């Protein structure tokens, strides 16, 4: 006793984008400029909100159905599945995964989205699930379309799904985006390219024929790695 304390693995700044990345113009006046001040981990950082399967409604993980009004959602049906792990390789059960995305035409249902592409009356674009005992999650949805944005001339976001995750602690929190393999827009996207080069592949899902459901939906696999709790030797004088 007394020679170790609980902590969470540090944020890996070789993985995460910098707070200011000038090619993504909005970061220039929004990203903090002063160095972050490091703090040790106490109970405040080692705990976090707990959501279980009772937080879910039956269609929350099926975006092909949870917005249906009078028919089927339009577009290419896909399965998105994967495991949530921590960076020590341990599966993360009971992790809340929330997603939101554009429809097949590249239009968000958000009232501020002015892109001149059609809304789909049978597609909402938001959902959530909780990982199972092995850390697995699974969504059914529609492949989102690309859409233009005002960052620079003729700028288009690659196809992507937004994901929000709670791991076991407040320090494990992650909001990210999942991209699709082979998308030519990735090489042009300042948000994707804001990520350190060695880490970019971790944002791109892989196509899987095993996950693909015959006659129904293409399958994509996207594993997600969060910061995890660990025991750290206590330094003298801590």
């Amino acid at each position, binding site marked *: 006793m007394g020679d170790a304390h609980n902590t969470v693995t540090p944020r890996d700044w070789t993985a995460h984008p910098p*707070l200011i990345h000038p090619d993504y113009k909005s970061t220039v006046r929004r990203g903090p400029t002063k160095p972050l*001040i490091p*703090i040790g981990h106490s109970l405040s950082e080692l705990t976090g909100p707990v959501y279980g399967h009772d937080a879910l409604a039956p269609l929350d993980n099926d975006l092909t159905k949870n917005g249906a009004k009078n028919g089927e959602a339009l577009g290419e049906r896909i399965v998105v599945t994967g495991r949530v792990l921590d960076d020590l390789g341990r599966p993360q059960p009971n992790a809340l995964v929330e997603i939101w995305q554009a429809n097949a035409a590249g239009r*968000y249902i958000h009232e501020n989205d002015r892109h001149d592409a059609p809304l789909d009356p049978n597609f909402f674009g938001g959902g959530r699930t909780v990982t199972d005992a092995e850390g697995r999650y699974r969504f059914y949805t529609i492949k989102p379309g690309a859409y233009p944005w005002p960052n620079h001339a003729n700028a288009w976001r690659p196809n992507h799904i937004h994901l929000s995750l709670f791991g076991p602690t407040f320090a494990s929190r992650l909001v990210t985006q999942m991209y699709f393999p082979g998308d030519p827009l990735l090489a042009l996207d300042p948000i994707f390219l804001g990520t350190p080069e060695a880490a970019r592949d971790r944002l791109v899902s892989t196509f899987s024929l095993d996950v693909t459901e015959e006659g129904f939906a293409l399958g994509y696999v996207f594993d997600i790695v969060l910061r995890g709790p660990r025991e750290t030797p206590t330094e003298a004088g801590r």
Partner: protein
Amino acid sequence: MSAPKQTPSQTVGPYFAYGLTARQYNYPHTSIADGSMAGEDVEGERIRVEGRVLDGDGMPIPDAMIEIWQADSQGRFAHPADPRNSNAGFTGFGRFGTGTDPKNRFIFDTIKPGSVTSGEAPNLNVIVFMRGLLTHVYTRIYFADEDAANAVDPVLSSVPEDRRGTLVAARHGNTYRLDIRMQGDDETVFFDV
């Protein structure tokens, strides 16, 4: 197998509202949390915590999302790592987007937290997300009427004295107000948690 590496963060973007804060923004979808954090059965002093998120030009940001994680009135977290059994019905988690208030404020109706351990001042743990922020940042909100506790709090004490005020919310009746400044001379202190 070598240990897997962390998945990079990406911006929450401009369109999180219907996915993460649907109830607050009146989209037809449920929400796991919003700005109303304490139901009637929760013990503690009712407070409101509000403020704006300001960009480098001092303009309020209308598409930021603030998350709060806090202890209950006795300083206990509703989490298995805290064995002290937080009071029923209080999750300690709130989430609010700055796009619905006419002044683009975040507004949390909650209870004032207690000290988690003796020596720590009561505070709210805060995460800031927004379009234009590729990786979320952490900060804290302390309370101006807790001078004695704030003076010895280990986290506040680790902040240069001339910047501590950026973390302390002023009290007006039952409302605490604090703006979060992303940049500028009085840039809010953000932590590497």
